[in-house]
């Protein structure tokens, strides 16, 4: 097989399918006139095409006789009965229901987080309690920011507590 046969062999598949332009087709035909190996290759492709059409031809004939519609209709009717009964086009309302449920769940979650944060922050800001060691006795100070109240406990001995 000549080196340039590789070029023409790659064109033979498209030549068989009549997909070459007129210039390419003329070029291939000119080569085929003088190259037996390329002619044999083309004949092989034609045989393969014939066998393929025989192999699949019977299936085409049978499939023309059978009707798929009854089974398809049954599947479509089964699928429709599984959907929620809502007015509107097929399938779209189910999707909208899922979306709105997801949005509602997110809002509830956010509200929950905000409430938790607000309560803990409120408690943190509500009052401050410190313990102060002094020379006389330990002192505990309570400051309530919201009411602007300050309460001071002075511990005079281990067993007594007074507050102000």
């Amino acid at each position: 097989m000549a080196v340039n046969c590789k070029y023409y062999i790659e064109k033979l598949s498209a030549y068989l399918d009549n997909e070459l332009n007129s210039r390419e087709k003329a070029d291939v035909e000119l080569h085929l006139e003088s190259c037996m190996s390329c002619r044999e290759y083309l004949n092989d492709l034609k045989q393969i095409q014939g066998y393929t059409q025989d192999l699949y031809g019977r299936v085409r004939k049978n499939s023309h006789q059978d009707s798929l519609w009854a089974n398809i209709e049954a599947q479509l009717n089964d699928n429709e009965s599984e959907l929620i009964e809502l007015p509107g086009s097929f399938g779209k309302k189910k999707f909208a229901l899922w979306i709105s449920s997801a949005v509602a769940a997110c809002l509830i979650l956010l509200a929950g987080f905000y409430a938790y944060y607000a309560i803990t922050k409120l408690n943190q800001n509500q009052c401050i309690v410190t313990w102060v060691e002094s020379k006389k006795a330990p002192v505990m100070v309570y400051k309530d920011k919201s009411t602007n109240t300050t309460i001071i406990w002075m511990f005079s001995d281990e067993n007594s507590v007074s507050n102000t």
Partner: protein
Amino acid sequence: MNDADYTEYSDETLIEKAKKSDLEAFKIIVERYQTRVISVAYGIVHNEDDAKDISQDVFVKVYKSLDNFQGNSRFYTWLYRITVNMAIDYNRKIKRKQAMEYNDDINVKTELPLADSKQALPDKYIYDKEIYGKLQEAIENLSEEQKKTFILREMEDLSYQEIADIMKCSVGTVMSRLYYARDKIRLYLKPYL
């Protein structure tokens, strides 16, 4: 409107009606294309019953996805694309299942077109059985893209441009895939040619 009127409508008109849940319109689409869909599915899975099952699933999927079909391409382009992809997916599942079951047998899955030769020429029957078996095996061993391209060309006689539209590739790629597919099949069948 009765079926006789619907059969005269174009694909686009029937699709628009089917989008509005007109099952009679969709029935005409099914009847118009079922032969081709079964043929293409069979070309990939090589089993008539499986091809029919896949074809039913294809049409159910098409009906459910009608809103996604905007009419930017021909309806049969979109239909064939769904068909080849579902058939390839089916084949992958079967191969995974066979791999798990350690099935090493070559699976010639369907009856071969041999009924006539068996009675008249028994030797021809044996010879034909071998060739068709080898042909199925050769097609089975193509890459997925080569297989799809080969089936669409040989089963449906589609042009390279139509195949390129279905497979979303260039005409040059179609040409290349067909060349390599046929070359591989030729090597498989060389002793019989």
